[in-house]
């Protein structure tokens, strides 16, 4: 049987994380399932969690008053969703909808922040990993701004 610890260990985001840190993180994690077309993150709501996608696909959406929801990015198994839990005001800036049935590990942001404050090595590890993701997404967004296919 898969334990929470195994789920964390197997996800690329936590690859190479030390055993004691994985153990600590397991205490902040829970499994969730989201049905297709269900919104599980809403703009302006409190960002209490971040998510490791284990299965399925999510769409990050911005709502435009005249055009309705616009999908700006899709995310897949192996990716991490959400960093709004890291910094105040801890609020989501997107809507997120499951494009198909999803299985995720939800990590409690408040629990994690407490553990990171207590154990700075863990905090630094987590920040490094999130910085890598934030940088990659910023880079992808910049490329997207180039209107790549309109040569």
């Amino acid at each position: 049987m898969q334990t929470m610890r195994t789920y964390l260990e197997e996800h690329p985001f936590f690859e190479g994380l030390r055993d004691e840190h994985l153990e600590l993180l397991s205490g902040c994690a829970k499994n969730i399932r989201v049905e297709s077309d269900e919104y599980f993150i809403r703009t302006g709501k409190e960002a209490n969690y971040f998510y490791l996608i284990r299965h399925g696909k999510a769409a990050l959406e911005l709502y435009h008053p005249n055009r309705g929801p616009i999908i700006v990015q899709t995310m897949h198994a192996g990716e991490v969703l959400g960093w709004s839990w890291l910094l105040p005001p801890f609020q989501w800036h997107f809507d997120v909808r499951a494009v198909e049935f999803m299985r995720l590990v939800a990590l409690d942001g408040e629990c994690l922040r407490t553990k990171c404050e207590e154990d700075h090595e863990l905090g630094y590890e987590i920040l490094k990993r999130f910085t890598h993701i934030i940088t990659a997404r910023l880079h992808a967004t910049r490329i997207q701004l180039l209107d790549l296919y309109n040569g």
Partner: protein
Amino acid sequence: MNHADNPLLPREFRVSKIARETHDSFTMELDPAKGAKALHFASGQFNMLYAFGVGEAPISISGNPGNPRTLTHTIRVVGPVTKALHGLGIGDWVGVRGPFGTNWPVRESMGKDIVIVTGGIGLAPLRPAMYEIMENRGKFGNVVLLYGARTPNDILYEREVKKWRSQFDLHVNVTVDRAAGKWKGNVGVVTTLIPNVHFDPYQATALICGPEVMIRYTVIELRKRGVASENIFVSMERNMKCGIGHCGHCQLGPHFVCKDGPVFRYNQVKRLLDIREV
């Protein structure tokens, strides 16, 4: 001097089929005049299409090299010549010179994985390579097609791409820059698909076609995966005029794109892509 001897003389072809692809592009099928020979071509080559009384434009061949009797071109309407071609109907005449240029190294890549990365209208010159690969599917390893478009409405050959996606022996991933709610596919630039696709980077040939900025970022991602520069091939676009390397309009450093290209080994043009003025 007949047409076969003189590459500067256009041959007459008749428009046999026209299909709208997107808001600004269409596919045109051409048949040779009665009694004339078919134009044999290789995947990646292009023709100069002549709209009588208007002028010529270089257009990649997007049909099946195994069926040279019909010449297929997918054309984006961007200037007077392509606009005139867009205005033609079934049975109208077009002048054709070609085929010109180098081809995708499809046969040379047998036994290896194939990774095709393309964006926008760039799928057109790669479609002949896809046909060739599919007809010899057993002779290749993993075959990956990553295709990016601005929106779902800008996807070329939608039905065909859907068919490829449904095949078990192809890995086809399509992504768009933005989409409305009903789109079930990926959103994000095509380069973001590269880290997660399954292929052996040390035994793969990569074929890239799209705007140069897309080529640049695609090469970066492929190199990160471990694909060697000499196994990456790119299709370049310049202002091709004569098609035979005489006029110099398409000069790219020491190369003439019409004759030495359009398909280059990335190593050949790497340095030139970094020079802003070229």
